[in-house]
């Protein structure tokens, strides 16, 4: 199992070399978006309108952080369950999204879109929000402030630890991991 350092935004070459089970430390900008923000982004795409952020090469982190205490950039910030974004994710990959960070299984349509559009799905440790917040240096809301914890935020991360769950070849760490330890 390799440990790879990557800087965002990501290129096709960056994601194509990743394999399931690889531990990756991400540095740079990632954008937060979860259920309600995805719905709004999807509505804009349907209407043929511009998105509030240019997502080409970007990584979206499925997270709704806890409020920051004074003096801290952010509160606890671990991943939310990803399948709820499955309906929207392929469209975003078609527009150039290169990575998603979340936790939990993805649908076949999303895994296929990752193969087709060259993107990867990273897992962050669910429930480790206090630990993961330590890798986030800065957070600012860039869209949909009215959504509260569901607003889109621009995060600056430094060695943010993730694991490759689905690569660009259609592999799935969840399937392989469970098969290996099933008795």
């Amino acid at each position, binding site marked *: 199992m390799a440990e790879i350092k990557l800087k965002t935004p990501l290129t096709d070459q960056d994601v194509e070399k990743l394999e399931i089970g690889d531990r990756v430390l991400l540095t740079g900008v990632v954008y937060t978006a979860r259920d309600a923000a995805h719905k709004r982004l999807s509505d804009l795409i349907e209407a043929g309108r511009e998105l509030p952020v240019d997502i080409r090469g970007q990584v979206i982190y499925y997270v709704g952080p806890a409020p920051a205490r004074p003096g801290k950039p952010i509160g606890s910030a*671990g991943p939310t369950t990803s399948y709820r974004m499955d309906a929207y994710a392929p469209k975003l990959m078609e527009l150039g999204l290169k990575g998603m960070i979340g936790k939990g299984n993805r649908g076949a349509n999303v895994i296929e879109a990752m193969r087709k559009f060259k993107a990867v799905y990273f897992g962050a440790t669910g429930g480790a929000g206090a630990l993961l917040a330590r890798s986030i240096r800065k957070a600012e809301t860039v869209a949909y402030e009215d959504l509260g914890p569901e607003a889109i935020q621009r995060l600056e991360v430094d060695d943010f630890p993730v*694991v490759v769950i689905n690569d660009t070849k259609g592999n799935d760490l969840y399937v392989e991991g*469970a098969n290996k330890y099933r008795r």
Partner: protein
Amino acid sequence: MREIRTEQIVQAVRDLFIDANCNLGEDVLAAFDRAIETDESPVAREVLRELKENARIARDEQSPLCQDTGLAVLFVEVGQDVHVTGGDLKEALNEGVRRGYGEGYLRKSACHPFTRANTRDNTPAVIHFDIVPGERMRIVAVPKGGGAENMSRVDMLSPSAGLEGIKDFVVKRIEASGSNPCPPTVVGVGIGGTFERSAILAKKALTRRIGQRNADPELAGVEADVLSRINRLGIGPMGYGGNTTSLDVFFEVEPCHIASLPVAVNVQCHAMRHKETIL
């Protein structure tokens, strides 16, 4: 008759939700330690160590373990000789939630089901009242995260399914949940009563401590058996593969209708948060 002022209730609920969200129980930490000793998967052991480290950071900084600080579930046992003074009991419980989630920097996750508009203060709480003998009030705060809650199910089995049918239903539910509910999970199983009663029993089961077996030796055996079956599924911590898919399984059982066999499975993530106080 003993008087309890609403201000005491507000303060107690505030403190319980902050405490539950920032300070993981020693029983859960001990379960992580046991799993680090026994899980065959190096990745699983690494994840479990991260969870321990996360709990340490949360405790040190008094920040929530997880950004999903839950809907606010409360079990409130009111002694029949208690007289609440100074206002409305239900409003006092909700005010405690409002203050805890505001002053504790906890995330507000309550929203309208259709518009998804956030209520902004994490109210209303989900409150389960019970009237009991005595002149005390016991309040149990259970912040319940959405990811694991979404994996929960109720089914009305045919009585012919029997105990084996119940066990299969629980194991299959955990298998189908896969990596979604942040394993290693804790599984609350409510059997009996009516449709809604089984779900409340399942939720209440999650207020036990890890390792606390059912007082009925037969049910204690069933819990151990189901736990062992779940941990042979291979899902493991975070679903990356391993022998620790659940930390414990708790059954709560009550009589049901002669035509029915209600079974509820309430899935709880590894951040098994519950704190209680007696006023």
